Every structure is written in structure tokens, then in C-alpha cells.
């Protein structure tokens, strides 16, 4: 499987008469892009706005940030399966990407209506809070979109994410027939057999148990989010977006999945420092001990069968999902596969361990610091000059922002505003680490 990834760097985005790319400048025909979005009868309102790095702008709330990618040669479409897109196996041929631009999905639609998880991520284009996230460096084209209010939550989720992908596709089309300024070929070529064989265990949350629906919206594998046994994916599939979509945290978004620095580094050093075997993607939040242990056993067995001598492990969740993640590490170690675990940490209240189940086999851990902004002591984000999205935030029972204001109060989103509860750098974008 060979994939040529052509990169078109974007340094500025403007609204113009035609959607086109020229030497780093991306012009967007706002009316025609919005017309494409509004073709979907499930969409009630849609607007496009721009947010540039350094501006006193807050985007509220943010469901997802998408990097425009488009399939130029080879089977399938980028970001396959999700929201009803083609499910042909991707990873082959040529893909073009627009780097430095994000399509931001701004909508009040919540992940599901079972409670517990709220869309409360927001982005600032300047200031201390904005600087904590890689999206601040992007020129962000924000789709402020609301669906028909009479629809069910799941349909609403699919409608607004499809709308954001429609914008992403339209931008991608602008570079379909152009020659990319930068090219990189990704292929798992045969390498020196003496090199150590390394696999990436990429654990991804499933919302099935919490929502009660096997088709609830979340980061998806070819569109599927349900609890499934481990998947073996070629890294090219992931570069083409076979694993995509957001959930809950600012670091679990389409953009961060597509630009995961750990995956890219594992891939780029294939043949030099190790033999990269690809990705085992494990769904998490199984809800019995037996299932958690079974998934751990099968993940380790699959890794062993693929010849892995080492495994790098990440996850994108919290709580009980730690069990199947750390048990997978334990199972790998017991089969002789050395593991390294990249994870955030909980706070050490009353001397409790910063990990739910600290097992002795998980003895090589890279910390990306605390997963809660509150533990990190991040001060509230200052007031901003402009808000893209909703002007107020209603405090719901279970909200993590603005609790001090009391239930059913509304806060002006222009701020100052408390930061979201979660931080959780899943893939090591930043350099924060443990506090000794």
C-alpha cells in the first residue's frame, strides 16, 4: 500500500468569488460552499466565518476541527464511512491536503442525549488558553451550523458533521488538479530484518455504553463507533482518515487524529530506527471485566502474531477505559512485547495514584501531564473582542464550565470564561509532562 501525500501550505484564507488556491492563499466562495451545506434538508442554519491566529476571537462551542484532505488517485474518499460516506478501503494512491487551515464545526449539538458528556470545548485564537492547542496556529474557517431542532440527537450529529465535511471537501477540490508544493511518500517498505518490530496500539473511545446506542457519534473507524474487537489498520488508512471524527476533548478531533505526531514519527522512522508494523486500534469502554480482559488478550495476541517486539500505546479517554488499556499493556508484556505508554495523569488527591490501576508491567510511561485543566491550574480565559458561534452558554446540570453561576444561568461567551474541565493531550502535541 503506497500513499503519496501532497501538501498545500495555507498562509491565509479570504472570502472571494471563487474557491481557489494560489501560492498559499486560499480563497473561499462563501455563497457556493454554504449552498452546498444547505442542500441537506436536515440543516436549519449555516454561516461561515474566519478566525486568524493572534486575533482576539473565541470560537464557541467547538465540536471538531477538520483538515481538508481529498483523494486524487486511488480508491475511496478521505474520511471514509463517517456520515454515510463511501467505505472503500483507503490508503492507496495520492491524497492532497491543505495544511495550516482548519474547518471548525461550531454547533450546539451535543454528542448524545444520555447525559454526562457535553460539548464544552472552545478555542481562543490568542492568549494563554488558546496557546494550549495546536489549532491556534491554523487559519480557521468556522462553519456555524444548527440542524432542524425536531430531529433526534444522532441524526443531528451526523447532519452537522456531514456539513463540516462538505466544507472540507469543497476546499479540497480547489487543489485536486494542482501540483502539490510538497510531497511525501508513505509506504511500509521491506526493511533490514535486524530492526526491532514496533506496533502502535491506538485506543479509541466508544460511546456505545454511555449513550446506549451502537451508532452514536464519536471518533469513527470507517464510520463505525460501536464496541468492536481490535482493528488492524495500515497507517496509510489513517492518513486518509479511516479513523476520524471528534469526541469530548480538544485533542480528540479529526485534525489531531490526522496529524498525530506519534503516528507520523513512527512512520517516518520506519526502516531507519525500527520496522513499523502498523496500527492496532482498540475500542474502549467495554463494560464488564470479562470483555475488558478479552480485548486486552486479543490485542496482545494480534500484536504477537504480527511479530511485534515493541508497542507504543495511546488512549483518548478516561475512567474505567483505563482497565482495557493497561491490561493490554500487561498482556503484551507477558507475551514478551515491550511497551511504552503515552498518557495523561489524574490528580493525586490524598496520595491516590495518578492512574486508575497502576500495574507493574506498565513500567515505561511517558506523561503528557494532568488531564484536567483544573489540576493544571489554568486560569480563566480573558474576555475576547469577538465570538464566533453562540453568544451565550447555558449552564446545564453536569456542565463543567460556569457552575459557579448556578444551574440554568447563562454566561456571555465573550468572557471572561472558565476553561473546560478536560485538557488531555492524547498524542503528545505539547511538551507538558509529569510534575515530580
Amino acid at each position, binding site marked *: 500500500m503506497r500513499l503519496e501525500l501532497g501538501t498545500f501550505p495555507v498562509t491565509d484564507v479570504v472570502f472571494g468569488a471563487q474557491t481557489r488556491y494560489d501560492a498559499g492563499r486560499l480563497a473561499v466562495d462563501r455563497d457556493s460552499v454554504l449552498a452546498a451545506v444547505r442542500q441537506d434538508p436536515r440543516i436549519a442554519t449555516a454561516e461561515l466565518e474566519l478566525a486568524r491566529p493572534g486575533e482576539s476571537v473565541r470560537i464557541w462551542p467547538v465540536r471538531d476541527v477538520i483538515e481538508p484532505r481529498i483523494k486524487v488517485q486511488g480508491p475511496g474518499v478521505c474520511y471514509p464511512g463517517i456520515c454515510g460516506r463511501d467505505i472503500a478501503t483507503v490508503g492507496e494512491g495520492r491524497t492532497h491536503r491543505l495544511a495550516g487551515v482548519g474547518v471548525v464545526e461550531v454547533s450546539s449539538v451535543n454528542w448524545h442525549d444520555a447525559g454526562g458528556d457535553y460539548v464544552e470545548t472552545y478555542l481562543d485564537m490568542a492568549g494563554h488558553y488558546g496557546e494550549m492547542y495546536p489549532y491556534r496556529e491554523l487559519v480557521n474557517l468556522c462553519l456555524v451550523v444548527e440542524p432542524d431542532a425536531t430531529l433526534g440527537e444522532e441524526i443531528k450529529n451526523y447532519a452537522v458533521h456531514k456539513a463540516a465535511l462538505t466544507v472540507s471537501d469543497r476546499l479540497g477540490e480547489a487543489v485536486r488538479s494542482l501540483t502539490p508544493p510538497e510531497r511525501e511518500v508513505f509506504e511500509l517498505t521491506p526493511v533490514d530484518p535486524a530492526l526491532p518490530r514496533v506496533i502502535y496500539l491506538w485506543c479509541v473511545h466508544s460511546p456505545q*455504553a*454511555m449513550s*446506549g446506542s451502537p451508532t452514536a457519534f464519536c471518533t469513527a473507524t470507517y464510520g463505525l463507533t460501536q464496541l468492536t474487537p481490535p482493528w488492524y489498520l495500515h497507517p496509510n488508512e489513517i492518513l486518509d482518515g479511516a479513523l476520524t471524527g471528534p469526541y469530548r476533548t480538544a485533542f480528540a478531533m479529526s485534525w489531531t487524529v490526522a496529524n498525530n505526531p506519534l503516528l507520523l514519527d513512527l512512520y517516518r522512522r520506519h526502516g531507519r530506527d525500527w520496522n513499523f508494523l502498523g496500527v492496532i486500534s482498540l475500542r474502549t469502554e467495554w*463494560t*464488564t*471485566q470479562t470483555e*475488558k*480482559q478479552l480485548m486486552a488478550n486479543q490485542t496482545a495476541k494480534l500484536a504477537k502474531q504480527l511479530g511485534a517486539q515493541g508497542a507504543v500505546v495511546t488512549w483518548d479517554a478516561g475512567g*474505567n477505559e483505563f*482497565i482495557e488499556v493497561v491490561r493490554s499493556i*500487561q498482556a503484551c508484556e507477558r507475551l514478551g512485547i515491550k511497551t511504552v505508554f503515552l498518557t495523561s495523569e489524574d490528580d493525586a488527591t490524598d496520595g491516590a495514584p495518578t492512574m*486508575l*490501576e497502576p*500495574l507493574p508491567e506498565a513500567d515505561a510511561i511517558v506523561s503528557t501531564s494532568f488531564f484536567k485543566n483544573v489540576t493544571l491550574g489554568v486560569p480563566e480565559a480573558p474576555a475576547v473582542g469577538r465570538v464566533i458561534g453562540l453568544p451565550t452558554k447555558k449552564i446545564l446540570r453536569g456542565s463543567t464550565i460556569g457552575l459557579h453561576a448556578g444551574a440554568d444561568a447563562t454566561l456571555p461567551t465573550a468572557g471572561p470564561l472558565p476553561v473546560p474541565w478536560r485538557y488531555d493531550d492524547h498524542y503528545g502535541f505539547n511538551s507538558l509532562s509529569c510534575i515530580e
Partner: protein
Amino acid sequence: MISAIYDFALTTGANRVIKGARIEHVCGDPTLSAEKDYALGMRIVTTALETLTIAVPGPTLFDPMAPGKPQEGAHAS
């Protein structure tokens, strides 16, 4: 302690651990009929109450679906 992830309860030192149904419905199963859901819940809770009368040497696992001999407190296996 009734828990669906009972190994974790055992490793954290709970003396009597009873296998629950699932994390999202520890003492029942909403996919069953109301009568069967009630019966399952009764069985789990009754088992839990009965274990209070049993002396245990340390963390010990009880399975409501296999009453009788308690299982050894397995540690992270």
C-alpha cells in the same frame, strides 16, 4: 462491593466483591423483560447481602450466577 469490573475492586482491597452485570447497569439488565430484570437484580443484591454473613480471609470474589463456593481474590490476572 458490587462491581462489573470486579478485578479492580479486588486489587483496591474490597473484602467481598460481587460480580455486577455491567458498568452501566450494575444490578440489572434493561434489555431483559421487567420481570427478568427484577429477578436478576434480586439475585445480585441477595448474593451481596448473603456474603456479609461469610467470613473471608481477604479480597474474595462472589458470582451471583454461580452461587456456592466463593472464588479466590484474583489480583490483576
